[in-house]
């Protein structure tokens, strides 16, 4: 009997969310098939690749990084260079300097810096906080205000501060709101419901479901993303139809495989190669599980992952 291909049709689709303005815009999501299932139907927008830049500059002088960025620590310079990175489609600026336990840079200075970064970048912008919820809440409000009309993505609103972040970024200043949860489909959905109950439009929300490095309990990530996509497409669950963005490098750069120097672990080989391997493996797994965008750090990873996407779609 001849093989007959049946295709899996869904009546629902992931929201297509456009970020950025003018000639630097990018659409995320929009598909109505499972990840990379281009044989079931066309994939409206391929998964996107972003470059993560810390406003503290490069804290790790790796040959590949230096080779690409040169010896500059100026964040605007770094962003300009990242904008031209092969495969890069958006920039994710991390406001590490704002951390009250670190440099504790003032909100005003941060806002000014983000403004100049936005002007310098030729790609759409996502902004990630410093991790201190209180500081981030204020930062996000001021940044959303200062960049009104630029349609950036604020990463992220969490359960503790969704009201303030949703109200400022989502309602008052028309930015896209990242909704961050920690690898749990119910918590993700609850946060989306809370944001929409607040008045934030479904179509202005992007989910960060959380992640782990491949090999570090990554099954939970796969299961969560998988179930989110199945609920969104199969059950037309509008509270889960937001595209998924996954910050990968912040996870993969902090595991021991990425931290230990070659002197400490000679049998493991080059540290930089390990960093790239962990980043590539995790990012590829996230995309296969359902992420609509990944945020990466190393230029080689960015190139490899964007190459993979091109080959598969």
């Amino acid at each position: 009997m001849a093989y007959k291909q049946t295709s899996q049709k869904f009546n629902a689709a992931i929201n297509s969310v456009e970020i950025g303005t003018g000639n630097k815009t990018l659409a995320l999501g929009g598909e109505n098939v499972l990840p990379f299932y281009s044989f079931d139907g066309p994939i409206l927008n391929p998964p996107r690749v972003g470059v993560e830049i810390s406003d503290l500059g490069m804290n790790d002088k790796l040959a590949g990084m230096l080779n690409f960025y040169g010896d500059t620590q100026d964040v605007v310079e770094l962003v300009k260079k990242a904008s031209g990175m092969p495969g890069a489609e958006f920039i994710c600026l991390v406001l590490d300097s704002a951390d009250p336990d670190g440099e504790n840079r003032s909100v005003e200075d941060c806002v000014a810096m983000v403004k100049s970064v936005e002007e310098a970048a030729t790609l759409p912008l996502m902004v990630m906080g410093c991790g201190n919820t209180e500081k981030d809440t204020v930062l996000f409000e001021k940044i959303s205000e200062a960049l009104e009309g630029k349609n950036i993505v604020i990463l992220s609103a969490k359960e503790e501060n969704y009201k303030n972040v949703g109200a400022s970024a989502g309602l008052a200043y028309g930015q896209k709101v990242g909704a961050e949860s920690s690898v749990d489909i119910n918590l993700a959905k609850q946060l989306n419901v809370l944001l929409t109950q607040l008045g934030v439009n479904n179509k202005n929300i992007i989910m960060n479901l959380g992640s782990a490095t491949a090999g570090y309990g990554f099954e939970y990530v796969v299961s969560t993303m998988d179930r989110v996509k199945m609920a969104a497409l199969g059950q037309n669950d509008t509270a889960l139809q937001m595209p998924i963005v996954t910050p990968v490098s912040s996870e993969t750069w902090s595991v021991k495989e990425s931290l230990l120097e070659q002197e400490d672990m000679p049998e493991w080989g080059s540290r930089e190669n390990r960093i790239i391997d962990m980043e590539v493996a995790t990012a590829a797994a996230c995309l296969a599980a359902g992420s609509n965008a990944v945020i990466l750090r190393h230029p080689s990873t960015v190139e490899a992952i964007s190459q993979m996407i091109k080959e598969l779609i």
Partner: protein
Amino acid sequence: MPKITFIQEDGKELIFFASSGDTVLEASRKANVPIDAPCSGNASCGKCKVRLIKGELESAVTRHISELEYADGYRLACVSKIHEDVEVLVPDISSAYKSRMKITDLSSENELAIFEETRQNIKAAGLDLKNDWHVITCFMDIPTLDDTMPDNERLIRAVKKVTGFPDIHIMIPFSVIRILPDILRNNEFTVKCVLQKKKDCVILYGIYPEHINPVIAGIAVDIGTTSVSALLVNLENGEILAKSSAGNAQIRYGADVINRIVESCKPGGIQNLQKAIVDETINQMIDEMASFAQISRNDIVKMCIASNTTMNHLFLGINADHIRREPYIPCFFELRNIKASDVNVHIHPNADIIFAPNVGSYVGGDITAGALSSMIWNKEELSLFIDLGTNGEIVFGNKDFLMTCACSAGPAFEGGDISCGMRATDGAIEAVKINEVTGESVLSVIGEMKTKPVGICGSGIIDLVSELYRCKIIDSKGIFIDGNNRVTRDAFGMGTYMLVKPEDSGTIKGVFINEVDIDNFIRAKGAIFSAIKTLTESLDMKMSMIESVYVAGGIGSGINIKNSMNIGLFPKLPADCYHYIGNSSLSGAYASVLSDKVFKKVVEIGRNMTYIELSSNPGYMDEFMAACFIPHTDINLFEEK
């Protein structure tokens, strides 16, 4: 050694020499001064408040004590270390579980009606509610030099003659033998006897002067993790002679069964826990009820216990540790031949204590007894029986099958783990309505007219959370939306909603609910709902197929079904599917103590139940997370159809 003086509210003082560095709570336990500590001394529940009168304590500041209270001397017993001589006042709230014992007379008709209904239902199902209890009058010849038969043989002969059981063995317990010579001679050898005919013998429980009409009494007890209730009944006609409820005195050893088991494994722990439930709780209830009904404790000749598995183990002083350890094996499901004297219960020493059977480590006799009184074992329609207690237990089925599971809801429905929570007794707010425009609330308080509210019970909490959500004062996560003038936030950022201002209430703090309380409550309701969903779905059935729901538990009779559905505690079904059946565990125990046939039925129900272990069900945790939201993460389950 520093000296600590505990002053109790009633003025009693107790001096104890503590080791330096002991906390007040540790010292109180050694000194056997009851201080309520549901969280076992982890500074998380805030219930172990004491007031420092003299001296200083090394005491950490916690969110449970306001600055005002701290200045007033209030300290948490569990975080206050003793280094010098001190005097502390143990306020009433600390010993609430003990002092709030309530003897209900027979005026509360609603409650009585529930027991009467159980009796009628069971009768209608064809089970005989009679037992072979008899009161007989024996006339004996007065002994002479020619008639030298000893007293006991004389009595046995007389009993055989009156009852017409010539060949059966007549057993006279020691308690009767001991008084026999005097009572026979003081009444000229004409006495009344209380006896029970069993299959192979007759037991002579009591002997009375002829002019006395002895009462053959039995006692039905529901031992809950948080509260205990009991009925004193006339075994001949089923009449309820007295009713009593009290907090379980074990509560100072922890709020839930796990903490109790942990405590019982410490040296002397099992004795302490047994003493707390038998001596400090049940025996005192028996005393009160017996004196209310004007009978002797020795007239109580049978007892039926319905309780969860841990509680019946601890009641008997049996090691319960294996209940909480994988593979979760209790010592027994069914138990026979326990006498009152085995466990030092102050009733007739030869009285049988019968236990409604356990079904699993976390589905106990309270549920088999409850399933009996819910009558779902006799129904055609698919029925759900829910017992809202510290452990939420659920039975689903009909006359053809019964499935059961248990979930840990925590004590929120009984007022535990809630700042102003209390059991459904005088002063408890049992219903709340909030005007969404003015923000004013209308309350219904248990007790006589104009009783000032002192706390809020389970049904009141359901109403309050539902109303707060409906009026958009809290969001779906149970967090306060700022802007309401009754909501304040403390230094830790935690929101509190003042329901009754201190000046309008019967306490110095007023009646309020905070975000931690609401979170505890949402977890409790999430546990119940997700258990219902998991249980029905494990049979490939939908919740919408449930035709009747029987709700039991000590959360107060006024449970508002509509509000319970609005917050996602119960599945969305037509409101008339729901029936409140009160303390079903107690009514099941009541029916079982009256009749051996009914007790046999309970045992049969227990054997027929299939127990599902939720903790080993991979989908349960997900369902639980989905249900910890108002009303539910999957809003479709609660939309009006």
